[in-house]
């Protein structure tokens, strides 16, 4: 079985730091800093907001429940901090200021070690020439000692701003005041610092890749910055401006401020919860740069959503926005344009059709201002390398809601795209009404006797899985929940990973389903009806609906089966209903009332319980709670008999069991489900016809 044993257990092991010295005025300070790099933050402290901004910039959030948060300093998080212009010594002073205990010397050492080399040198593209830039002439001299780099160097003709080593000098690009606010002590805002001087040397554009590789070897990874305002070779996309109606929220602004902090564009990743407006953030970033832009999405449905969003928020002319999917291959505007496509379209390395190859040649032959990557967490690293290799982009921006992977590839992203620039707190956004307030419910469905018996006797994992997914108690619970919520006027998504069971559920509920083999047109039609009409209140979706399908109206999820212990899938699915509803309050009262529901049905006493606990970990760390309901199935069973559900009697249960056991072998192949429905239901089944 493919269980997902994520390498990193977040559980921190016990430790005794009780002899750390507490400062006399510790009450006024919001954090504890442990020698092992763990930081605890009181979320109810007066200084919380300031401290939060600072801590997400320098440390990885481990758990953020309502009262006390936990963060951890890691080499990557410190790298990200340095990349956004926070200096080593400011990290230490601010930590010292926020900490209730005297800052342990181990922490100081760790911060210094991690930041001594990271972020000391940058690769800047300016006036279409590449420069290696640093505040420290020593670093440049060290880099130039390397043969490869020295050979790539181009000596300047102009003597004006050259220092004794032949380095160009100029004043350092100012970081936005807002980004540095958190570093200041309240009251010392007036102090003017002397502008800093940076030195740089130019390198040959052709040899840039070698220089980058060599710099990593020397442990001075070059951070890339794009001085797009001074790029006058790549043309701007005309009219690529935000419409006046477009409103940017505070957290979106914060994340963009991190990206464009010094007037240049930095590469990196922005982490915002699903439904919090990642798309708008991406669109705004692209239009700030105003150059040609490639936008990568996970599937064709979300490609169209991206296009729609670009047109909704900006004035971009229609001929400047192109879509490149297997169905649609628009022509690229010869000057500058926005291209939206999928990862697979770009990374595909088999033989392409002539038309597709033509577009691909245009993509690889052009210099792009910005590469937007949606849902970066889902893309395998290998695919990434290929994408980044074929799209020559000056800035790379990754967007995601859940920077967790069951494998340990997150660290790859750091070097392929760039550091994490910003990460929003789910609970804060919920409290402010930017996200729906979701009640998460775990419904325990006891296995019926015969199912339990087969489950215990089953020798292979697949059959076991099938048995706990097809548990009749679950079927009844689903029907009960769907009836209940439809009556309330809610819109419901039923998720099942197992296509076989998805079909059964769809048939039982007489609702349409979407899975991998559903043609694109039909998908669009179903989703369109679901969005627009009250006639369709429930749809059944397989894992193709996990990401990127935007269903703003949906407010209830019933999860029947899922991919083992995947924390990411759980968070992504929850994300489907996080978009704030029309009735979500933004005055802070959103905190106290639930307006969306996330049900996970779990067959009691089976492996599913174990997986379920594992899956919830990420959301629990974000501060969500799962309410366990144990008596819903009894109620559903009673209702089933009273209201003539599809599966109500023990005889019905046995029928399912028989089909499960006999069809186990050819499960995935058999499309037309061999389940025989109870006769009284059969008559009333009408295949749901979708009006296109």
């Amino acid at each position, binding site marked *: 079985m493919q269980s997902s044993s994520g390498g990193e257990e977040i*559980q*921190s*092991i*016990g*430790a*005794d*730091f*009780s*002899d*750390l*010295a*507490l400062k006399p005025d*510790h*009450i006024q300070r919001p954090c*504890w800093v*442990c020698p092992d790099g*763990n930081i*605890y933050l009181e979320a*109810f402290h007066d200084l919380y907001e300031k401290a939060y901004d600072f801590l997400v910039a320098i440390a990885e959030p481990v*758990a953020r*429940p*309502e*009262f*006390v948060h936990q963060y951890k300093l890691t080499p990557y998080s410190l790298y990200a901090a340095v990349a956004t212009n926070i200096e080593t010594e400011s990290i230490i002073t601010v930590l010292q200021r926020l900490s*209730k*205990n005297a800052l342990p010397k181990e922490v100081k050492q760790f911060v210094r070690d991690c930041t001594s080399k990271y972020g000391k040198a940058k690769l800047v593209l300016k006036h279409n020439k590449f420069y290696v830039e640093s505040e420290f002439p020593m670093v440049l001299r060290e880099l130039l000692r390397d043969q490869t780099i020295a050979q790539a160097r181009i000596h300047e003709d102009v003597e004006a701003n050259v220092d004794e080593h032949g380095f160009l000098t100029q004043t350092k690009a100012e970081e936005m005041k807002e980004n540095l606010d958190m570093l200041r002590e309240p009251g010392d805002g007036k102090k003017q610092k002397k502008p800093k001087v940076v030195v740089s040397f130019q390198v040959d554009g052709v040899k840039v890749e070698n220089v980058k590789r060599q710099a990593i070897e020397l442990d001075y990874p070059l951070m890339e910055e794009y001085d797009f305002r001074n790029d006058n070779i790549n043309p701007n996309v005309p009219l690529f401006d935000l419409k006046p109606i477009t409103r940017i929220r505070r957290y979106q602004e914060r994340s963009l401020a991190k990206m464009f902090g010094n007037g240049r564009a930095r590469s990196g990743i922005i982490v915002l919860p699903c439904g919090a407006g990642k798309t708008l953030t991406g669109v705004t970033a692209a239009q700030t740069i105003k150059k040609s832009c490639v936008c990568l999405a996970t599937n064709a449905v979300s490609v169209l959503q991206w296009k729609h969003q670009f047109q909704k928020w900006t004035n971009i002319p229609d001929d400047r926005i192109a879509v490149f999917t297997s169905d649609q291959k628009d022509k690229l505007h010869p000057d500058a344009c926005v291209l939206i496509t999928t990862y697979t379209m770009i990374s595909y390395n088999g033989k392409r059709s002539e038309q597709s190859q033509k577009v691909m040649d245009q993509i690889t032959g052009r210099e792009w201002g910005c590469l937007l990557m949606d849902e970066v967490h889902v893309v395998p690293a290998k695919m990434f390398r290929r994408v980044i290799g074929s799209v020559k982009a000056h800035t790379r921006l990754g967007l995601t809601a859940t920077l967790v992977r069951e494998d340990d590839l997150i660290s790859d992203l750091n070097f392929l795209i760039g550091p994490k620039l910003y990460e929003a707190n789910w*609970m804060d956004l*919920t*409290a402010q009404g930017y996200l729906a*307030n979701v*009640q*998460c419910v775990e419904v325990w469905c006891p296995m019926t006797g015969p199912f339990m018996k087969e489950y215990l006797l089953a020798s292979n994992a697949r059959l076991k899985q099938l048995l706990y997914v097809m548990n009749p108690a679950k079927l009844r619970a689903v029907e009960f929940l769907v009836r209940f919520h439809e009556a309330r006027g809610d819109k419901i998504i039923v998720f099942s990973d197992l296509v076989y069971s998805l079909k059964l559920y769809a048939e039982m509920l007489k609702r349409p389903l979407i899975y991998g083999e559903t043609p694109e047109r039909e998908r669009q039609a179903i989703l369109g009806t679901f969005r627009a009409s009250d006639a369709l209140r429930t749809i059944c979706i397989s894992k193709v609906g996990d990401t990127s399908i935007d269903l703003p109206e949906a407010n209830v999820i019933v999860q029947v089966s899922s991919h083992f212990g995947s924390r990411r899938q759980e968070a992504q699915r929850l994300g489907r209903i996080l978009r704030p509803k029309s009735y979500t309050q933004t005055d802070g009262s959103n*905190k*106290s009332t639930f307006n969306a529901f996330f049900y996970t049905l779990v067959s009691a006493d089976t492996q599913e319980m174990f997986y379920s606990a594992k899956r919830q970990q990420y959301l*629990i*760390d974000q*501060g*969500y*709670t*799962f*309410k*366990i309901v*144990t008596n819903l199935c009894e109620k559903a069973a009673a209702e089933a008999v009273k209201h003539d559900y599809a599966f109500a009697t023990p005889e019905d249960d046995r029928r399912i069991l028989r089909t499960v056991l006999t069809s186990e072998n050819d499960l995935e192949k058999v499309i037309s489900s061999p389940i025989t429905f109870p006769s009284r239901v059969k008559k009333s089944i009408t295949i749901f016809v979708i009006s296109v």
Partner: protein
Amino acid sequence: MTPEDLERYTQSQWDAVLHYLVGTPNMKVQPNPAVTHFLFQTDLMQPDPDYTRSSYNNKDDAPLVITQKGYDFMLQDNTQQVWHFIVQYLDSMEASEKKDKFQREALLVLICLSHSRFGECYSTALLTKRGLKIVKDLALFGLIYHKEIGGTSIFYPTRIAMQLVGAGGSGMWSWSTKALDEALAHPRPHNSSHLAIIVQTNFQLCAYTTSELHVSMLGLFCDVHSIRRLPNVIFMTITRDSIKGAFSLGIQSQQILRFLEKHAHPKLRQGSGGLGASVSASPLPGNIVDQICLWDRERSRVLWNDVFMHQPMLTGEYRAVHKYVLDHGYHVWSSERRNQIYIKYDHVERVQRFISKWRAKAASARGR
């Protein structure tokens, strides 16, 4: 002996008793053996069930661990605890003949103590023989400081002892009220009696305390391997195993919840209860309360019964035995196909007698 010394003395003596109760390892001050014996006698502690279950160990060597009653005791505030002790102490004299006289004497001593002055020393010369014995006993628990100096025996009454009678129930010594007053937002270092716990929705406890005792108290139902100690706060997690561990000592889920509620950090009581919390009176997150109750319920799902399996050997034996055990209510489970009958263990001997009788009869029938 300054009042501060006296205060510290009581605290350390009393803490030693509580520490012993909750099983803090490596304590500097060990309580007097008489005290530990007393804890055992009054059912506040029991021999470790894990230890005694293993047959290799001598049951008499079993270390003492807390009982359900002991846990209840621990939840009380100090005045209550001390009174509990005194009552038990008076009860323990039941056995002695002169019980009445003794108890009267003891009460007299207590009343005298309540009129004595704090920080002053008194000579034991004025006490009766019985009175002296009582003073010495109370000294064992740290309620009185007793000393012999150059042949004369003196004692200092402590604040708790003085407040036992008179000072109106909830004296200055009530930890809980004190804790609540001070807990407004933040703990103070060096005030070892303060405890404020934040229970987080991710099963993490965050306890503002500096007391070793509190660590041990929490350790009874938290995962001890996850404990992270900082100067004025302790982080630990509740796990299924840790709660089950507490259950196996006889601690009830309700006791744990009561403990957490009682010491809940004021922030938990404040306001709307936050995301996901229902509008219930409890300051604890709903999911944690539910989960602890569910773990509790898990225990009652499986019942253990001792049974004896009988496998009939002769033809007809299955039926005869089956009928016999059914008729007499000894039957637990049986399967003719597997040729097995499970019998309630308590009645095995009877059934076996029946079987041998039946076999004898069957053999003689065949012989005939």
